[in-house]
């Protein structure tokens, strides 16, 4: 039987095809004009590169605005008041800031255009087959003090391929060894999702990744610096706490999914207004990424309190900037150095001492490391890490097995094999000095 007849029978026997059932949608197809309902881009200096209607023919809209970095210049009206109190970094400032945040190629970033801030709004999580890219935002410096925000938004589901091809055509020549991606959680979300969608639509071959560029994901650094120091480490929270950026009428993550689908399913004026909110959210995101990067850089060099100082030092140390880390730790070590009474000393100072000692050890400053370990042992008798490190130093470097034995044995978690070995080394008749005496001697060698 012909399929047409079979479909007729199908229709006669069943009323619906799917769980969704027939909906009014098929009677109101997207008219070409209706996807141009995006917000007007008036204000100081924003311009739309291609007219909204021209964009909607292709099923997506591409809009461009430019923003001056200083807050003394009025922001485009389309951004609202959210960024009114925020300074954006200049291009060279951003280049420097990104150097503080991540390991970057030796050649460094282009100080005229160091990065593309990038953020996606999607209809679902990565790995969900139905999650497509609804809005993509990218921002970069077109002049030292001007940032351009380009934004693509989808007018219909079937146009995602065309939109991503357009986005790719802009990104590909721009990012590269001297122009990094800056994202928030982009390492596990935005960039892999973008790649997957590009592959899915056949724009990239599955084996290729032409968008290879340095990537500064602000989320891990933010976590390192500010974990447990606020309700969470979401971008919006960090903006509130550290950027004095307050978003008016912002949309949440789950809401974005809902609003994007509403718009794609039924692009009426109300949905268009909602889409405009998502787009504003996305524009603020890419701009606040720049501001956040700069603020984090600032705090990494000028921490506001002891906790942040320790964490900044860790960050620098992890990025291979041991001397900067050491310098940041200096003020924290005072509590140990001033001969604080035995058994006292803040946790912060202990951690700082151990980190500084580790940096000293790696740099070959063995004695300084030993002094710090001894000071930690003095502040917290039995501290396993410090006792072990000091015992090792005494055994292998200073070659004083008796002292090493005293220190090793006093650890709260002594290592049996080390004790046996040290007893052998020290010899049968060796006099084992009291541990306090050893620790004091090494903590203040001059005294």
């Amino acid at each position, binding site marked *: 039987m012909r399929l047409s007849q079979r479909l007729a029978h*199908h229709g006669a026997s069943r009323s619906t095809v799917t769980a969704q059932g027939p909906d009014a949608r098929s009677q109101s197809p997207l008219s070409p004009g209706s996807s141009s309902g995006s917000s007007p881009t008036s204000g100081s200096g924003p311009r739309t590169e291609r007219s909204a209607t021209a964009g909607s023919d292709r099923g997506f809209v591409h809009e461009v605005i430019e923003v001056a970095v200083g807050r003394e210049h009025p922001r485009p009206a389309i951004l609202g008041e959210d960024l009114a109190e925020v300074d954006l970094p200049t291009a060279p400032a951003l280049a420097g800031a990104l150097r503080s945040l991540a390991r970057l190629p030796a050649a460094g970033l282009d100080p005229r255009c160091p990065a593309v801030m990038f953020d996606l709004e999607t209809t679902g999580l990565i790995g969900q087959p139905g999650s497509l890219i609804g809005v993509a935002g990218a921002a970069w410096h077109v002049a030292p003090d001007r940032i351009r925000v380009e934004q693509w938004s989808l007018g219909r589901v079937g146009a995602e391929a065309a939109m991503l091809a357009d986005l790719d055509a802009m990104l590909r020549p721009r990012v590269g060894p001297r122009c990094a991606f800056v994202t928030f959680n982009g390492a596990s979300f935005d960039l892999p999702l973008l790649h997957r969608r590009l592959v899915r639509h056949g724009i990239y071959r599955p084996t290729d990744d032409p968008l290879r560029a340095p990537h500064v994901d602000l989320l891990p650094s933010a976590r390192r610096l500010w974990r447990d120091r606020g309700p969470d480490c979401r971008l919006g929270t960090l903006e509130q706490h550290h950027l004095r950026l307050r978003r008016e009428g912002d949309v949440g993550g789950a809401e974005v999914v809902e609003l994007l689908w509403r718009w794609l399913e039924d692009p009426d004026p109300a949905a268009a207004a909602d889409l405009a909110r998502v787009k504003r959210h996305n524009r603020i995101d890419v701009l606040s990424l720049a501001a956040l990067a700069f603020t984090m850089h600032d705090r990494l060099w000028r921490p506001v309190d002891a906790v942040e100082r320790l964490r900044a030092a860790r960050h620098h140390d992890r990025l291979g900037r041991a001397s900067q880390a050491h310098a940041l730790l200096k003020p924290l070590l005072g509590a140990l150095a001033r001969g604080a009474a035995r058994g006292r000393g803040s946790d912060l100072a202990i951690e700082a001492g151990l980190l500084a000692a580790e940096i000293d050890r790696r740099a070959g400053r063995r004695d300084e490391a030993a002094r710090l370990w001894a000071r930690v042992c003095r502040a917290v008798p039995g501290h396993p890490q410090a006792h072990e490190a000091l015992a090792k130093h005494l055994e292998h470097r200073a070659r004083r097995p008796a002292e090493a034995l005293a220190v090793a044995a006093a650890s709260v978690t002594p290592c049996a094999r080390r004790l046996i070995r040290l007893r052998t080394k020290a010899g049968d008749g060796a006099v084992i000095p009291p541990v306090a005496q050893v620790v004091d001697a090494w903590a203040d060698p001059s005294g």
Partner: protein
Amino acid sequence: MLEPNPSFSRARTLLSGASNGNGRDHQALARTGEAHVFAPHERSPLTPLTVAADEIARHPAVDLVHLHESSARSGAFEPWPEGLDPRLLAALTGHGLSKPYAHQRRALDELADGRDVVLATSTASGKSLCFQVPIVQAVLRDRGARALMIFPTKALARDQVESMRQLTGALPRDAAVGVAVYDGDTPPAERRAARGRAHAIATNPDMLHRGVLPHHEAWGRVLAGLRYLVLDELHTYRGLFGSHVGNVLRRLWRLCRHYGARPQVIACSATIAGPGALAEALCPWTRERGGFSVIDRDASPAGPRRFLVVNPRVVDEITGVRRDYIKVTRAITSVLRRSGVATLAFCRTRRAVELLTRYLRDDEAREHRGQGDGVAARAAASTAIRGYRGGYLPDRRREIERALREGQARVVASTNALELGMDIGGMDAVVLAGYPGTRAASWQRVGRAGRRGDPSLAVLVLSSSPLDQFVAASPEFLFDGTVEQARVDPDNPEVLLPHLRCAAQELPVREGEALPGLGVDDTALALHYLADHGGLHREPGPDGGRFVVLGGDAPAEQVQIRGPLEENFSVLDPDGEVLAQVDFEDGPLYLHPGAIYPIEGRPYEVRALDWDGRKATVRPVRASYYTVAVSKLRVRVVDLGQEPSDAPEDSPGSSYGAGTGCAHVVRTVPGFKKIRFGTHENIGFGPIALPDLELHTTAAFWGLPPKAAAQLSCPAQRAGAALGAAHAMRHVAALLLMCDAGDLRHAVTAGHPAAWGIALDGTHGPDALAQIEAGGVPHVLLFDRTPGGAGLAVHAYEMGAAFFERVIAVVSGCSCGDGCPTCMGPSTDAAEQYGVDRAAVLTVLRALRDVTRG
């Protein structure tokens, strides 16, 4: 499985005419020209196998109905083709594969010519090598080459990957070829590795449908490099399931094109009629490049095989009652067991597997008790005799397969679970406890016997069911007939449309795009149909419209290609350890409190059933009986989509015409019987209070008009004839609708179709009440087995009188005497009770045809 094609009228006639047993059988043998004096056989030397065969032929419990001997076939070998990578050649010769069989060579040549190939040679004829070699060769030539290997089950995929790794493991280190499984059991890290690094990936249609295609970009590297698509056990992709698989493959092919790949297809099938047609129906895109090369000439060596068909002896000359076939199978298999011959006993039901396992172990232990203590004898019996069926945990199944391969297990009783290509090595003998229902399934199972040219033995023990007795009366049916065809219909809208949604989600479908095998016009038709009904959304665009899925739902999650999956029941021991799994529908039958649930013959009693938690707690017991649940089927047609065609005449017992609607089917399990082990006598009864199972599906019904009812004056005759007609209608509908007979069900009820009626069907009956009810004014029902329906019964109805003409032609035009399994007649006890005669069935069919006309 292919559905039994039962009937029996002829067998019945033969039986009633020739209840004098032995003499007739021997005459039948003589007539068919077989060597009717089986032993002594000059040609065959005295081996344990031939001795056992002789003993079986003369066994007092059976009559030998037929002996079929096939002579040995020597293998035909050819050299490996030129240009085979030397590293691969070395690996092959290292495995003793210095020369391929001629059919393997031909497959490789056809593949080298760029053809798609379907192999339909016997079990153990080296079909796997025909895809392993080209895959490895392709990877050695191009490291980016990939292959997807689709197996119907996870176990088979695992088995084949191990087998392929033995070949690839012999390759040098710099020529490594990665082989991996990707299925629901693969942990995430291994999944990534499989996608990223494996060259050959084994998976199943379900994973392809839900796990691969919707996320195709993650598979881009695999799809872009795809050189070969392997479809193993092709014959399992038939009926509704096959139609779903056909659409999954369509989607796969569409994505392959998207990534620029044009893989060749290598399909392997058991012996079925028209493997090329099935392969083409599943892979319609191969038509434009010349279709499949069918390779069915088997060049592997085969030993001589004896095939004995035996019928249990008649125990009561007056009634013609024969010995219980399970008990006879026990006796026959014990002959082989004592001879130390490696034997596989295929049973039709899981219960039969358990009974046989227990009986054989008992016999084995008893015989060895004389030589030692009883405990050791039982332990030895448990090692040598094993049971194998679905429901056992995978570990246990793997362990039994290994025991078979390595020879610790000598006799294994199994369901069709061992029918597919699991590697269990060769067996010396296969016993079929009951006719498997189709010739294809029979040969597939018998093919398990015979190791590399050694003689083998197959014994078919017939049951007393009419179909089996038909085989007894006409054994040539088994040997001369061609094997059954496997049918699929991927264009069934009920199947096609949901998969089209999946396709649109994978990549928006452009207006003007043609789905493989569907053409531009039909694709457009289906797309617009979906758009009109809200299944897809059509978006206009400057370069033509696109059909897309809105709302971010995952259409693939809504399409169950194997029918709906209800969570199954776990069988737990008192410590909470899982012992076995039971399918949801079987739960009430096997796991009601008080049921005896055996595992490899060991009885467990069900203490409690947690219905919502899907858990049954059992404890080991020493039971002298097993339990059989009684089930009843009730059905009514509600929400009549098509009104009954003509107003009933205003008289009691009149018909309600014909129509379609939604069927509400309820299965009740009211109680269970206790049956004593060994004697199989009924020793008690108990009630069961468990929820009914309900099925809502689509149905068609036809009521017998009063005139015809008057012609068949005896209610029992009416009921029986209606049942025979329903059976024939189901099978012919399956034929015309290209589905499996098991995708449809039939029933006979009485009274208005919207009122509850007790249904008679293949598994439910006979029942006095049902007989009276159905004997009133029978209504024949066909309904789809899939919840929600698959358009099959309705489609049969839409064919109208033409459908009945086909059924009538089949029933009346068969060359058999009075009706045979191919043309009509149920295989159940019900038929035996009601009696079926062809004239009555034809009367019913003609009357139903006229109802449809009216």
